[in-house]
């Protein structure tokens, strides 16, 4: 076992443990905090994939913005009596079974694929991936259309969400 493997395994166990708690814990605020731990573990995973830009972006956007948005929404919609009942619906065992089956099927499918055991290729040396990404995002023969569409999507999300959530004064 190399050091990298040990780091990977510890992160994976913590992350998956956190994820399990996210979907099982009854208290929603606790679930949100576990979600933050899980997202942090995923950020470490990005780091292990040498996509360090995504590591920081994950923390900034998922933990700094999305998780906080979720906590706000939980606080806005909480009812005390709701916590009393069961937090899962009647078919939860079916859902669990389906997830388990899907997981086994996915792993089985992967294992039959020849590229499954690809080992880490060396990164192109002395290339600043952030720079490459920036160039690709706006260069006309790169990904400029997705780039602009993303901004339109964000605009639509902003306007749509505000219109939906906004309380009209009567």
């Amino acid at each position, binding site marked *: 076992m190399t050091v990298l493997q040990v780091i990977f395994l510890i992160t994976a166990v913590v992350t998956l443990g956190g994820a399990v708690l996210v979907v099982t814990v009854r208290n929603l605020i606790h679930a949100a905090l576990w979600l933050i731990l899980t997202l942090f573990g995923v950020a470490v995973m990005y*780091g292990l994939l040498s996509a*360090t*830009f995504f590591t920081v*972006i994950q923390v*900034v*956007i998922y933990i*700094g*913005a*999305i998780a*906080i*948005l979720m906590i*706000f*929404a939980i*606080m*806005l919609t*909480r009812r*005390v009596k709701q916590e009393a009942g069961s937090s899962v619906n009647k078919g939860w065992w079916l859902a669990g079974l389906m997830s388990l089956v899907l997981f086994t099927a996915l792993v089985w499918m992967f294992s039959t694929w020849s590229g499954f055991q690809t080992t880490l290729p060396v990164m192109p040396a002395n290339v*600043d991936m*952030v*720079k*490459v*990404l*920036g*160039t690709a*995002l*706006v*260069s*006309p023969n790169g990904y*400029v259309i997705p*780039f*602009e569409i*993303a*901004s*339109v999507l*964000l*605009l639509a*999300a*902003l*306007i749509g*969400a*505000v219109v939906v*959530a*906004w*309380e009209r004064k009567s």
Partner: protein
Amino acid sequence: MLNDWIFIGIFLLLAPIFPALALLIPRLIAPRKPNPLKTETYECGIETYGETWVQFKVQYYIFALVFLIFDIEIVFLFPWAVAFDQLSMFAVLEGVLFIMILVAGLFYIWRKGVLEWV
């Protein structure tokens, strides 16, 4: 480069230890005699009444929402700024267009009166 990230990792693991140590010392030497009156929630001299969970204004959510949308832009704009050397004027203007579209959203909600804190 890799060494730098190892350093950050070590820092992440060690940084909570310093404040945790500072909390450990009082646990050993400070007195600890809680009683119901002492651990009462402090609320300007009256006894606490009802649920802590008061209903919040939707305004908080709206501001977090606007923040989220503007936060996303950094994913796109930071690489754009870093790659500035290799960009043509056209590519720069694309970045400006990106910002302008978001500004249009800001002005829309401004006109709607969403940004008023009422």
